């Protein structure tokens, strides 16, 4: 971790330490959002020329990781990305969330922009008024669009947090800015990597909770961690986390290598499922209560594994790339990669 990364993590931890009640109250979420903005966190990815901190994805990932460690109640990946994208729309107030979905089609009829083809779905927060999303024109040109949330349908995700769904017909005040394909790719990559970072934070928190529990909970006259079955479950969980951290670290340093970030997101999904299931197993009935802290983490893992790119879609994308590598080409596909 760089010094700046350390600093950002510390800032995030300091803020989040005040909010560890996992409260769903809008007032608490608004208060947290206030602290986040005061600390300038949404501007981390914005270039310095635009008034931001001009930092990279590796540093921003440290904020996301801290977020995951606290199972904090705001959509950090979306806030960080919205902060970077806001100037595209003329410095529009960053009361915007971000939709990960990618199959929106933008067409222009006269002066009127219209959307079709896909849904806009975004995690909400207090005061959220716009959602940014990727769109392409029928001829394949790339755009970033900003839509108003006025007609959005509210729903509640597995984590208990509010989300917005906007059908293309319900998209109001559509603003569209042309971007190149690289921006679309970058958007995807950053959203997925920030999510992976948040997942590693949550997974490491879960492992710490589990180690503490199996070291202190006694049954049959000894801590349950003395039983080999528990030790092996724990070993598997720790290995999955270590593997995820390794591939995330690699992906954060390789902006031009889609195999790296796709593998990171796929691996994070696999690890999250394993770790969440094992943790619930080792915590027994106690960990299955609303009162216990475990579900705040496991629910996030269950949703994050299929947010941005779903785990299975990452696997399919990797497979499709590999299938294009030519006869005997898999080794070169794996090792001869641009950074």
């Amino acid at each position: 971790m760089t010094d700046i990364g350390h600093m950002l993590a510390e800032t995030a931890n300091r803020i989040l330490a005040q909010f560890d009640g996992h409260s769903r109250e809008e007032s608490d979420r608004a208060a947290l959002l206030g602290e986040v903005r005061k600390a300038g966190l949404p501007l981390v990815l914005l270039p310095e020329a635009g008034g931001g901190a001009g930092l990279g994805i590796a540093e921003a990932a440290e904020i996301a990781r801290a977020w995951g460690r606290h199972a904090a109640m705001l959509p950090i990946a979306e806030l960080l990305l919205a902060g970077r994208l806001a100037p595209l729309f003329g410095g529009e107030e960053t009361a915007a969330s971000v939709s990960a979905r990618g199959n929106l089609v933008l067409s222009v009829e006269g002066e009127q922009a219209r959307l079709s083809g896909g849904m806009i779905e975004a995690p909400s927060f207090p005061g959220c008024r716009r959602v940014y999303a990727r769109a392409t024109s029928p001829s394949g040109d790339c755009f970033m669009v900003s839509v108003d949330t006025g007609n959005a349908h509210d729903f509640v995700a597995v984590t208990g947090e509010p989300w917005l769904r906007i059908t293309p017909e319900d998209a109001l005040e559509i603003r569209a800015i042309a971007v190149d394909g690289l921006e679309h790719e970058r958007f995807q990559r950053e959203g997925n990597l920030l999510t992976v970072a948040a997942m590693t934070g949550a997974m490491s928190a879960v492992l710490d909770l589990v180690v503490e529990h199996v070291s202190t909970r006694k049954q049959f006259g000894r801590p349950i961690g003395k039983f080999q079955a528990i030790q092996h479950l724990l070993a598997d969980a720790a290995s999955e986390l270590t593997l995820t951290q390794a591939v995330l670290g690699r992906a954060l340093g390789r902006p031009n290598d889609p195999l790296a970030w796709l593998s990171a997101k796929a691996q994070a999904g696999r690890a999250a499922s394993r770790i969440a299931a094992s943790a619930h197993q080792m915590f027994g009935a106690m960990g299955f209560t609303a009162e216990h802290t475990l579900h705040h983490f496991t629910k996030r893992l269950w949703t994050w594994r299929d947010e941005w790119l779903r785990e299975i879609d990452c696997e399919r994308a990797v497979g499709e790339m590999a299938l294009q590598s030519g006869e005997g080409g898999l080794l070169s596909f794996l090792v001869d990669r641009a950074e």
Partner: protein
Amino acid sequence: MTSQASPPDSQVHDALRKDVRAFVAEERAAGRIKVGQSWPTFDREFSLRCAGRGYLGMTWPKEYGGQERDRSERYVVLEELLAAGAPLGSHWIAERQSGPQILRNGTERLKRQVLPEIAAGRCTFGIGMSEPDSGSDLASISTKATKVPGGWSLDGRKIWTTNAHHAEYMIVLCRTSPKTEGEDRKAGLSQIVVPLATKGASVRPITNIAGQDEFNEVLFENCVVDDDHLLGTAGEGWRLVTEELAYERSDPDRFLSTFPMLSSLCDYLARQPDRHAAIELGRLVSRMASVRALWLDVIAALTRGEDANQQAIMMKEMGTTLEQEIAEVSRKLIDLKPESVGNDLAAALASAILNAPAFSLRGGTREILKGIIARGLGVR
């Protein structure tokens, strides 16, 4: 060797990688890399050609036949040869662990006698650790070495020694002091280099379920070897064997053994790609990419002089599980009847299926590895 060394995946090593690929292509064209083979497959001629190419003893001191090249360069060569399924069994153990063990702990005379032979590809070593009654519980071994004038006399039995029937030497873990129960059971052990042509050493091949004679049983009956074949000093064998085992853990063989199968699976699926197959393949490839990333982290940590034992063990455990998954997904998706004999995809499939159980047994049984990981987490 510099601390600023470029990692194995750096483009700095492109020329070397190309060189190894050219070698592999030549060997393939000449039919000398066969389907269903892997790094344990014994082929002395192949090892001699590897040595001629400068691929053995790369990091060793020049005075012992090495080239004093960077560790990363060795990893580049290993990665390419392992992924190709090359038959490295004649030199594998000698080059990657026995040689370095002797380099660290052998007498000068022993080093000069053995190391250049290994670097030249002329020497095979066997690992003398397991016994019929001592597998995972290595400290319980009972092969003993009794002091005699000018040397040691060995009595006992070793088993599961890969390629011992071809080996010139074996490093034997033995008791040089009587066995005691309780905390001292790891004391009194030593490692001795035994030339297998020595009177009193006899080797009996054991055929495995895949029909290969890789395993052996080695019997020692009053087998006398010279004093200077003792590694380190008598009684420090447990520390030596622990170091030797740790040394092997950073090598990429533990996730690349079935790479040829994965590559063949990819080629097979590419002929008629479908969504389901792409997902299955992608799951394996993304896992492979992740394990490789962990491997690179382990190497980077070792290069910085840090302990990476916990990560290396995790890498090994997940690597061998991946190897078994590759065999499993391949047999599900490849619509061919596996054939035990042959040189094509059907034979590769049979080989993968038959050899799969051994991946999580050899060089550290899975359940033992998980126990070590748990200990590293503080729960054991």
